């Protein structure tokens, strides 16, 4: 059996009776693995204490593999999105597994040989391609298996991406500690061993995804589900738009702004969570204890981020995509306003607001594939999703710049406490309002962009 045949879309058409509930764990095995990217910070101190020892740029350099990885995530999702849709999810998952695992193995070799550039190229470039292809690999398949609940289906997978760091962070920390790669006298060999084990471990873990993934047969639909029910909902189209045409529509760019500003609003808090908590509640405890409490704040935000992906995205199946983004953006702006007024007076209210903001941040990622399905159909939804993820890359730069730069400037002016964040929270509110307006402007796509109904979609095997 030729390898290409094994990966081919035609080989993974599900036979009658195949359970669609096997598809979410297949997707999760990919997303839980690649979500490791958010736990990269665990390696920063060991790398600074070994390979980058003595460098005045060690902080920046040790972050480079992660930064390049996130850039490559957006770039590869945009570049390979069409290939993922055409070649099918097994091909995409195998490529993602190969790239992501190879990233760790190349990094292990880089550490062992004392060549930091290999860590950057391995984890950042090669691994980053795995991140991008892996992120979009199960999305269109899930949407096709769950036409009745696309928000819930993509919510499960993308929750996995949020949860990946929860697994990777304690796992890699314990390995680094066991191999003597922590503290000022860290051994580089310990970092190499950790990378090696992670590369092999993730290759095995992700294999369940590409072994189990199936696409539904032409004409398949869930028992008891009537496609006519989709047509009854506003803004939900049964027509298909190609990725090439989708980027020509105002709907794509309005949604791009919605995603970008929703992510910016959340990432601003997430990226600076620990110092933000310590600035708000500096009188709560001595500095050392406060740092431990702040770590708890970071953890609870991660939990909210992860759960929001599933809970709110599933809710969007009931109340509609436009309405759920009204909540993310409108209520999000109100929550930032509450944070501004309440400050550090009421800790419980502060925690509730911050957790809800972060749940909306995660949910924005999880709901957007279903929103794209509603607007552009299932034909090339993976490719369109890939192109939309460039909004994430922009927000990843915008959010931290707004919060960090403004807070640092206020600090330099001699200010302290919640007032450090007044101006940046004002900007977040403004961005969320702009996002809210853009969401209001989203209307059904002009039929001139639709693919011909009797075209080659079915024969191409992409419109299951």
């Amino acid at each position, binding site marked *: 059996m030729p390898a290409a045949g094994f990966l081919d879309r*035609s*080989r*993974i*058409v*599900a*036979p*009658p*009776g*195949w*359970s669609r*509930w*096997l598809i979410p*764990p*297949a997707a*999760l*095995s990919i997303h*839980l693995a690649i979500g490791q990217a958010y736990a990269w910070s665990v390696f920063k101190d060991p790398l600074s204490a070994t390979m980058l020892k003595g460098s005045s740029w060690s902080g920046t350099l040790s972050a480079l593999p992660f930064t390049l990885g996130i850039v490559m995530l957006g770039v590869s999702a945009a570049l390979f999105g069409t290939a993922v849709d055409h070649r099918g999810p097994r091909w995409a998952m195998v490529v993602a597994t190969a790239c992501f695992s190879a990233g760790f193995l190349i990094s292990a070799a880089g550490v062992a040989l004392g060549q930091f550039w290999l860590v950057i190229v391995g984890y950042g470039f090669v691994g980053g391609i795995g991140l991008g292809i892996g992120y979009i690999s199960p999305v269109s398949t899930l949407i096709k298996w769950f036409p009745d609940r696309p928000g819930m289906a993509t919510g499960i997978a993308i929750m*996995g991406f949020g*949860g990946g*760091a*929860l*697994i990777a*962070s*304690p796992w890699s920390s314990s390995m680094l500690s066991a191999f003597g790669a922590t503290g000022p006298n860290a051994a580089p060999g310990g970092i190499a061993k950790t990378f090696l084990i992670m590369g092999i471990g993730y290759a095995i*873990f992700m294999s*369940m995804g590409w072994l*189990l993934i*199936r696409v539904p047969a032409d004409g398949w639909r869930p028992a008891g589900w009537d496609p006519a029910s989709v047509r009854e909902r506003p803004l939900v189209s049964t027509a298909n738009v190609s990725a090439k045409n989708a980027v020509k529509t105002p709907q794509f760019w309005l949604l791009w702004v919605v995603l970008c500003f929703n992510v910016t609003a959340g990432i601003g808090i997430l990226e600076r969570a620990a110092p933000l908590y310590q600035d708000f509640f500096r009188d*709560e*405890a001595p500095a050392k*204890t406060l740092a*431990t*409490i702040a*770590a*708890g*704040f*970071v*953890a*609870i935000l*991660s*939990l909210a981020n992860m759960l929001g992906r599933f809970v709110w995205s599933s809710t969007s199946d009931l109340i509609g995509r436009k309405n759920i983004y009204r909540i993310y953006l409108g209520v999000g702006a109100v929550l930032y306003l509450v944070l501004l007024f309440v400050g550090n007076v009421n800790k419980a209210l502060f*925690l509730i607001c911050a957790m809800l903001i972060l749940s909306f941040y995660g949910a924005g990622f999880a709901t957007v594939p279903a929103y794209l399905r509603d607007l552009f159909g299932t034909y090339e939804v993976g490719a369109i999703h890939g192109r939309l993820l460039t909004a994430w890359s922009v927000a990843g730069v915008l959010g931290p710049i707004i919060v960090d730069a403004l807070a640092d400037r206020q600090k330099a002016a001699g200010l302290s406490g919640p007032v450090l964040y007044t101006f940046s929270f004002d900007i977040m509110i403004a961005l969320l309002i702009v996002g809210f307006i853009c969401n209001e402007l989203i209307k059904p796509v002009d039929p001139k962009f639709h693919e011909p109904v009797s075209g080659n979609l079915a024969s191409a095997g992409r419109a299951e």
Partner: protein
Amino acid sequence: MSESTPEATSPVRLVVTAIAWLWVLVPFLYGVWQLLIKVVPLFSR
């Protein structure tokens, strides 16, 4: 050509489904547990 797969009512399919979910849920719950341990200090005062 589709690969051969268990039928809908097959106990094999149920076992495969259970293994698939355990495969992802076990590490996921480990991660959630580690996270909850960190959250405790936030509410301890």
